[in-house]
C-alpha cells in the first residue's frame, strides 16, 4: 500500500509541479476574480456613450484604457466583455463536452451499427467547414449570444465524440469492464459506474485543451457580428467593432485582441498542465525523454583499484532514481565481473534492480529520471561509463550489445527487419550496401530463420514472437560483440519458443568460442538477466541473485541451486514450482518485496525473513564464502567469523 493521498489532493500537487500551468492557473484565477468583482468595481457604465469623448487613447483621465468610438470606457467594457466571453466559452465547452462525450461513450461501448451510425454523423459534422457551419447555424437562428454558443457547441461536438469514443473503445475490453458485466451490471451500470469515471479524465483533458479554442471561436463569430447584441460587449465583438479603427485608433481593437490572447494563453497553459497530470501516458511526472546516455555523477576513476584482466568489471555500481530533488537508489553498490566466454545469470523478482543494472552497463538506463551515482564499468580495463558519447556509441552494438525482453516493442515497427539489421552492420563496419546485405542474410540464417530473403523484407509485426527475438539476437551479434547483455530475452515467449531461443543462444555462445581466430583469448561473454531460476540453470555457469537493489548471493549455478545460502535464495527455490516434482510448493514467501527506490538501509529481506534478527537492520556486506561464492547475510557473517 504505497500512498495515501486523495486523488484530488494528488491532482493539485501534480498540477503545481508544472510551473507554467501554475502561471496559467494564476492568470486565469486573476481574470476570474476580476470578472467576478467587476460589478462592484468603481467603473463607468460600460454602455454609457459619450460621443464627445470618443476614441480617447489609453491613460487619459477618467479612462485608464481610453474610450471606443462611442466614447464608452474601454476598461469597463473589456472587463464586462471578458465576463460574457468567458461564460459563453465555458458553457459552450461544457455543452459540447456533454453531448460529445455521450455520443462517444455510447458509440464506443455498443459499437456495431450504433457506432457506425453515430460516427458517420460525426464525420459529417467534421467534414463541414466548421466556421461555415457556425455561420450557417447563426444565420438560421439569428444572431445573439445564445445562438453563437449553440453553434460553437455543435461545431465542437465531434472532437469530444471522437476522443471519448477512442478512450471508451480502449476501455471496453479491459478486464474490469468484463468483470462488471460478469457481476451482472446493466449497460447503464457499466457506462455510468465503470466507464464514465475512467473516461472523465479524458473528458477533462479535452475540455481543458479545447476551452481556449472555443473562446477563440466564439470571438470569431462575434468578430463577424454574430455574437453579443449591442450594447453588450464581448471580446470578439469589441475586436470586430474596433477593427475598422485599426489605423486611426489601434488600441480599440488591439486591447480586446490582447485580452483574448492572454485569456487563451492562460487557459492553454492550464490545459497543458491538466493534460500532463491526467493523461495516463504522461503519468509519473513530466514527459521527459531519455537522453542518449545515462547521466553519470562524479568523474570517479578506480585509480586505487587494480586493473582486472576480466572482460567486463563492474565495481560499486549505484544507479538511482532522481526526481524532484530526491534520489532513490535502485541499484546499490553492485560488484561483479564477467570473464571471456562466460555466461552469468542475474536473477531476481520484478523491481529488484536487475534490469537497471543491465542498462547501466552501457549507460542506457533512461536518464532522466535515472542516473548513475557511482561506480565504474570497465571493458578490458577501460571505464566505458565516462567515455565521450561518440566513443561510447562506437562501443554500443559493436563490443557490447543487448537483447531486450519484448521483441515487438524493441524493434522499430516501421522499418523492415533487413533495414534494421543492415543499419547496425553499416554503423560499425565499413561495408558496401551489397556486402552488408549478404552479411545480414548470413546473420539471419545463423539465428536459424527460415527463408531469410523474404524475412529481410518483413516488418516486425509480421513475424512471430520467436522469430522477432531471433532477429534481435541477429542484430545483437551482427558486429561480433565481446559482451552480450540479455535482459529477460525469453520472458515474453511461450515455453516451447523459450526453449528454442535458449538453445540457440547456447549454441551461438559455443560457436563464438570456437570462432575466435584473432588469437586473443576471447569468446562471447553473456550477462543473462531473468526472474526464472529454471532458465538460469539451463544456460548460465554462474548466478548472481539480486534482491532490493543488491546482489545477495553469488556463485556457481550448480552450487547455488543445490545449497542456497541466503534465506531469500532458499525461499525462492522452495516456492518455484517444478514440473513433476513430488513435493508441492508450500506458502511462498510472506509479504512483498520492497518497492523499487524505497529499500531499507539494512537487509532488504528483513521483513519477510524467518530467521531475521535485530542485527539485520544494519547494512550487511557481501561475504566471501569461498573463492567463487559470496552471500549477503548476517547469519553467514557470524558463521564465517
Amino acid at each position, binding site marked *: 500500500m504505497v500512498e495515501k493521498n486523495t486523488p484530488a489532493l494528488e491532482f493539485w500537487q501534480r498540477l503545481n509541479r508544472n510551473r507554467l500551468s501554475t502561471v496559467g492557473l494564476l492568470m486565469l484565477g486573476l481574470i476570474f476574480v476580476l470578472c467576478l468583482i467587476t460589478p462592484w468595481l468603481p467603473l463607468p457604465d460600460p454602455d454609457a456613450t459619450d460621443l464627445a469623448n470618443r476614441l480617447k487613447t489609453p491613460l487619459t483621465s477618467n479612462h485608464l484604457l481610453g474610450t471606443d468610438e462611442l466614447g464608452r470606457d474601454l476598461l469597463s467594457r473589456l472587463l464586462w466583455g471578458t465576463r460574457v466571453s468567458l461564460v459563453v466559452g465555458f458553457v459552450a465547452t461544457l455543452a459540447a463536452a456533454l453531448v460529445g462525450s455521450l455520443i462517444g461513450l455510447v458509440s464506443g461501448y455498443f459499437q456495431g451499427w450504433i457506432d457506425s451510425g453515430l460516427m*458517420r454523423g460525426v*464525420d*459529417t*459534422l*467534421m*467534414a*463541414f*467547414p*466548421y*466556421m*461555415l457551419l457556425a*455561420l*450557417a447555424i447563426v*444565420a*438560421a437562428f439569428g444572431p445573439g449570444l445564445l445562438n453563437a454558443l449553440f453553434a460553437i457547441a455543435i461545431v465542437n461536438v465531434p472532437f469530444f465524440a471522437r476522443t471519448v469514443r477512442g478512450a471508451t473503445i480502449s476501455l471496453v475490453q479491459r478486464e474490469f469492464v468484463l468483470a462488471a458485466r460478469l457481476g451482472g451490471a446493466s449497460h447503464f451500470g457499466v457506462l455510468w459506474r465503470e466507464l464514465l469515471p475512467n473516461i472523465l479524465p479524458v473528458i477533462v483533458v479535452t475540455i481543458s485543451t479545447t476551452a*481556449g479554442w472555443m473562446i*477563440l471561436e466564439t*470571438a*470569431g463569430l462575434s*468578430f*463577424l457580428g454574430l455574437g453579443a447584441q449591442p450594447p453588450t460587449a464581448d471580446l*470578439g465583438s469589441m*475586436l470586430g467593432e474596433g477593427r475598422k479603427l*485599426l*489605423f486611426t485608433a489601434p488600441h480599440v*481593437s*488591439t486591447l480586446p*485582441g490582447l485580452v*483574448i*490572447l492572454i485569456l*487563451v*494563453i492562460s*487557459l*492553454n497553459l492550464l490545459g497543458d498542465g491538466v493534460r500532463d497530470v491526467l493523461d495516463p501516458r504522461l503519468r509519473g511526472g513530466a514527459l*521527459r*525523454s*531519455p537522453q*542518449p546516455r545515462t547521466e553519470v555523477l562524479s568523474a570517479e576513476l578506480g585509480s586505487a583499484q587494480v586493473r582486472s584482466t576480466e572482460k567486463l568489471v563492474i565495481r560499486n555500481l549505484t544507479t538511482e532514481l532522481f526526481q524532484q530533488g530526491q534520489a532513490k537508489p535502485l541499484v546499490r553498490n553492485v560488484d561483479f565481473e564477467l570473464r571471456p566466454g562466460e555466461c552469468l545469470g542475474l536473477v531476481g523478482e520484478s523491481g529488484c534492480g536487475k534490469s537497471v543494472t543491465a*542498462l547501466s552497463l*552501457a549507460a542506457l538506463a533512461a536518464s532522466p529520471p535515472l542516473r548513475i551515482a557511482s561506480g565504474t564499468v570497465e571493458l578490458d580495463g577501460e571505464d566505458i561509463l565516462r567515455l565521450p558519447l*561518440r566513443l561510447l*556509441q*562506437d*562501443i*554500443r*552494438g*559493436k563490443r557490447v550489445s543487448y537483447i*531486450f525482453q519484448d521483441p515487438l*516493442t*524493441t*524493434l*522499430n*515497427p*516501421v*522499418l523492415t527487419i533487413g533495414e534494421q539489421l543492415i*543499419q*547496425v552492420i553499416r*554503423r560499425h563496419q565499413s561495408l558496401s550496401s551489397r556486402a552488408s546485405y549478404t552479411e545480414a542474410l548470413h546473420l539471419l540464417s545463423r539465428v536459424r530463420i527460415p527463408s531469410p530473403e523474404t524475412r529481410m523484407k518483413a516488418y516486425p509485426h*509480421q513475424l512471430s514472437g520467436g522469430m522477432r527475438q531471433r532477429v534481435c539476437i541477429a*542484430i545483437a551479434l551482427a558486429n561480433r560483440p565481446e559482451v552480450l547483455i540479455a535482459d529477460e530475452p525469453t520472458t515474453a515467449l511461450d515455453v516451447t519458443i523459450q526453449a528454442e531461443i535458449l538453445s540457440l543462444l547456447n549454441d551461438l555462445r559455443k560457436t563464438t568460442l570456437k570462432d575466435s581466430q584473432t588469437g586473443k583469448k576471447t569468446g562471447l561473454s553473456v550477462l543473462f538477466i531473468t526472474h526464472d531460476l529454471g532458465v538460469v540453470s539451463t544456460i548460465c555457469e554462474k548466478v548472481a541473485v539480486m534482491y532490493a537493489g543488491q546482489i545477495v548471493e553469488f556463485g556457481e549455478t550448480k552450487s547455488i541451486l543445490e545449497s542456497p545460502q541466503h534465506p531469500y535464495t532458499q525461499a525462492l527455490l522452495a516456492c518455484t514450482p517444478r514440473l513433476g516434482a513430488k513435493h508441492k510448493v508450500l506458502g511462498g514467501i510472506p509479504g512483498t518485496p520492497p518497492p523499487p527506490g524505497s529499500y531499507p538501509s539494512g537487509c532488504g529481506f528483513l521483513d519477510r525473513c524467518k530467521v531475521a534478527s535485530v542485527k539485520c537492520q544494519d547494512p550487511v556486506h557481501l561475504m566471501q564464502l569461498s573463492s567463487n561464492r559470496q552471500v549477503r547475510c548476517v547469519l553467514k557473517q557470524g558463521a564465517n567469523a
Partner: protein
Amino acid sequence: MLRYTIHRLLLTIPVLVGISVVVFLIMALIPGDPATAILGAFATPENATKLRAELGLDRPLIEQYFTWAGNLLSGDFGRSYALNRPVLDELLERLGPTLLLAGSAMCVCVLLGLIAGLLAAVKQYTWVDQGLTLFTLIGISAPSFWLGLMAVSLFTVQLGWLPASGMYTPYGDESLGDLLVHLLMPAVTLGLVASSVIARLTRTSMLEQLRQDYVRTARAKGERETAVVIRHAFRNALVGLIPVLGLQAGFVLGGAVYIETVFQWPGIGRMLVNAISTRDILLVQGGVMMVATIYVFFNLLADLIQHALDPRIQHSHG
C-alpha cells in the same frame, strides 16, 4: 491497398450524403431567401413571392432536395441566384485560389510545425524548447483574424513590404513572384495557427516515441543520436501525426473563411460567407459540398499515407 482505398471511398458516401442533407436543411431554415436578396431593398412581399415561385422555392422541401441532389449527381450544380451564373463555373474559378492558399498554409504548417516540434522535443527543457513552446502557445492562442489584421498593419501599412490583399497585383504581369508575394502573408497567418498545433503534437509525440523501447534498441546498437531521432523516433511519430495533419487540413479550410475575408483572397471560403448572407442557396450548397469533399479527400489521403507509412495496419481491414 486498392481494396482499402475503395473501401474508404465507399465510406465517404454516407458522409457526403449527410452533408448534403445538413446543408440543405440549414439553408432551408435560414430566414430571408434568395428572392429578397435578389430584389434587395426593393423586395416587397408580393414581388418576393412571385420570384420565389419562379425560382421553384415554393415547392415542398423534399422535392427541392431531390431535384437538387439529382442534378448534382449529373454534375449540374444549378445557377447562382445572386451571381447569375452557373454555380460550378463560380466554384471552379475559386477552387484554385483556395487550394493554393490552403495548400501553402499546409506547407507552412507541416514544415514549421514538424521542425519546431522536433527541435523542441530534442532540445527538451532548453531555451530552444521554451522559446518554441512560447511561440506555439501564442500561435494557438491568438485569434487568426486578429493576427491577420496585425500583420497587415505591420507589413503593409507600417513597413510597406507586402501587399495587403488580393492574389495578384492588379493589371500586373501575374508572375509567380507576384503571386508568392501576395500569398505570403495569408498563407503564413493561416498556417501559423495550424503549425502551432502540429508543433505541440509533434513535440509530445516525439517525446513519447523517444521513450519507446525501440529507441533504446537503436541506442544500444550504437546509432548516432541524429539517426536515432530522425530515422527511428521521427518516422514513428510521423505515422501518428498524419491523421492529425488531415484534420488540420479541415481546420485550415475552415480558417480560410476568415483569412480570405481579411486578405480579400478570391477563394471559396470568402465566397461562401457572402453567399450565406445573400441567401444564395445553390451556391452555398454547392460550395459546402465541394469544400466538404475536399476535406474528405484530404482525410482519405492522410489515411492512405498513414497506411503506406505504417506497415502494422492491415490494409483490407475495415
